[in-house]
C-alpha cells in the first residue's frame, strides 16, 4: 500500500517542463537588473567612521510627529527596509507623513575589529540620535529597532531614556534562552573568545551559512526549485534576485562587538537576567519608561515570538503594546500583508503618543 500514484507519462512531462522552466529562468536572470540598494530617494545627512545616517525625502504631508530613527541590525544590510517600491516599510512610513531616518552601519573591515558593543550602542547610535535631535530641535526621537537593532535600541533607551520618546521594537530578541530559539541553542556552545582571537572579525559568510542552516531544506533547495514557478515572470524574477542579493549581502562583524553580543546576550542572557554593563554603565531595562510597541512575527524562525514577548514586564514603561504579525522574520518587511498593516500600525500608535 502506498500513496504514490504518479503516472509515469505525467511525471516525464512534469520533469521536462521543470527543466525547461529552470533553464528559461536562468537565462532571464542574466537579463535582469535587480537595482541598487533600496529604492526611495534619500540623502546622507551624517557620517561617523563607517556609520551613515540617511534621511528619506518626504512623500506625503508632514504628520507633525517627531522624527523616527530606524536602527537596523549589525548583521545583514538595512536596505531590506526599502527593498523595492511595493515592498518597503520605509515607503509606508513616508506615506503616512513620518520623517524617516535610517542608520547604516556599513561594512566593518580589519580596522574595525576592536569596535565594541559600546561603540555601536552609545557612540554611533547616540551620535545619530543626537544629530536628529539637533536638526529638529527636539529633546527626544522615536526609535524603531529592528532585530538585533531592537536589542541595541533597548540598551540605548535604558542608558539614555531622555533621548527616546517612543520605542518600537520589531522582531527583537529580548530573552535569548527560550526553548524555541534554535540559533541560541547553537550559539551557547560556541567558544566565541577563541573564534574572535583567531579570526579578528567574523566573516559574513559564516553567519549566512548559520542562518541558512536553521532550515536548510526550505531555505535552499525548496526556494531554488521554486524558481521554476516564476520563470517568464520578469517582475517575480527581479524580486527573487533582490531578495537573494540581500540574503547574501552579509557584512563581516566587528570582532569585539560580536564577542560581547554573543557572550552577554546569547550566552549569558543578561538583558533578562541582569548584570549587563555597556561602556561601564549598568543597563537596567526598568529605566525604559517611554511607550513601547513590540512587533513580533508568529512564524519567525530566527527570533521566535517567545524571545520577543518577555519585553512585556521587563521595563519600567506603563505603556506597552504588543503586536503579533502573522508571518516570518522577513515577511515583516516584505510580505504583501505587511505593506499596509505595519506602517499603519506604527503610525497610528505613534500618533496617539
Amino acid at each position, binding site marked *: 500500500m502506498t*500513496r504514490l500514484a504518479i503516472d509515469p507519462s505525467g511525471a516525464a512531462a512534469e520533469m521536462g517542463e521543470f527543466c525547461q522552466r529552470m533553464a528559461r529562468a536562468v537565462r532571464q536572470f542574466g537579463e535582469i537588473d535587480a537595482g541598487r540598494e533600496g529604492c526611495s530617494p534619500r540623502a546622507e545627512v551624517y557620517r561617523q567612521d563607517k556609520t551613515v545616517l540617511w534621511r528619506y525625502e518626504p512623500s506625503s504631508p508632514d504628520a507633525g510627529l517627531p522624527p523616527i530613527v530606524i536602527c537596523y541590525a549589525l548583521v545583514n544590510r538595512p536596505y531590506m527596509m526599502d527593498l523595492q517600491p511595493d515592498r518597503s516599510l520605509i515607503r509606508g512610513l513616508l506615506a503616512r507623513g513620518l520623517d524617516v531616518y535610517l542608520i547604516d552601519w556599513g561594512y566593518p573591515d580589519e580596522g574595525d575589529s576592536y569596535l565594541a558593543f559600546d561603540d555601536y550602542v552609545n557612540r554611533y547610535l547616540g551620535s545619530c540620535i543626537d544629530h536628529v535631535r539637533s536638526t529638529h530641535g527636539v529633546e527626544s526621537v522615536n526609535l524603531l529597532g529592528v532585530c538585533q537593532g531592537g536589542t541595541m535600541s533597548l540598551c540605548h533607551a535604558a542608558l539614555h531614556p531622555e533621548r527616546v520618546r517612543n520605542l518600537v521594537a520589531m522582531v527583537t530578541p529580548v530573552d535569548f534562552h527560550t526553548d524555541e530559539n534554535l540559533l541560541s541553542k547553537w550559539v551557547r556552545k560556541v567558544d566565541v573568545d577563541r573564534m574572535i582571537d583567531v579570526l579578528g572579525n567574523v566573516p559574513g559568510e559564516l553567519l549566512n551559512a548559520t542562518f541558512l542552516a536553521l532550515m536548510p531544506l526550505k531555505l535552499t533547495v525548496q526556494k531554488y526549485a521554486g524558481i521554476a514557478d516564476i520563470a517568464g515572470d520578469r517582475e517575480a524574477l527581479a524580486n527573487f534576485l533582490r531578495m537573494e542579493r540581500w540574503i547574501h549581502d552579509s557584512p563581516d562583524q566587528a570582532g569585539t562587538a560580536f564577542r560581547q553580543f554573543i557572550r552577554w546576550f546569547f550566552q549569558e542572557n543578561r538583558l533578562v537576567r541582569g548584570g549587563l554593563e555597556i561602556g561601564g554603565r549598568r543597563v537596567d531595562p526598568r529605566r525604559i519608561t517611554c511607550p513601547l510597541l513590540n512587533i513580533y512575527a508568529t512564524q519567525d524562525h530566527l527570533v521566535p515570538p517567545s524571545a520577543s514577548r518577555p519585553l512585556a514586564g521587563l521595563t519600567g514603561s506603563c505603556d506597552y503594546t504588543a503586536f503579533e504579525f502573522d508571518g516570518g522574520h522577513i515577511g515583516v518587511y516584505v510580505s504583501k500583508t505587511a505593506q499596509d498593516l505595519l506602517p499603519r500600525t506604527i503610525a497610528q500608535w505613534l500618533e496617539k503618543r
Partner: protein
Amino acid sequence: MEFGNDYAGIAADFWRKLEPGNGDFDGLRASLTARYQRLFTPPVAPAVAAADPLASSAAFVRYQRALKRFGRQTEAIALDAFRRLSASIGATDPAAPPITSLRELHELWIECGEAAYSNAAHSNEYAEAQAELLASLVELRREQLLRR
C-alpha cells in the same frame, strides 16, 4: 541549478524505483539519505591536500574528528528523514491524499527532512557537535595563519 538538480535527482531516484521489477529499496534509501545529508552539512570544508604539512597537524586531526562526529549526526538525521518519508508514502490512512506529481513528492521530501532536522538540531548533542566543528575550523585557520 545545484538545487534544481536535487529536484530532478529525487524524481530520478523514484523513477527508477517505479520501474516494473525494480525492487532496489536499499539503493533508493542510500540515494535519498545522501541527498538529505549533503544539505545538512555546512559548506565550510577547507581544501587541504594530503601533501600539505597542515594535513598532519593536530588541528587537522581535530577537524577530521569533529567532521566525523558531525557526520554521524547528519547521517542519523538523514536516516530519520528517510524513515519519515517512507512512513508518509506508505501511510494507510485513507485520509492521506495520494501523491500524484513529482512536485508533491518533492514537497514531502522537504517536509520530512525539515521535521527530522528540526527534531535533532534542537538537541544538545547536535549543538555540541556543531560547536566542535566550528572550533576545529578556527584552530585549523589559526594553524594556517601561523604557517604563513
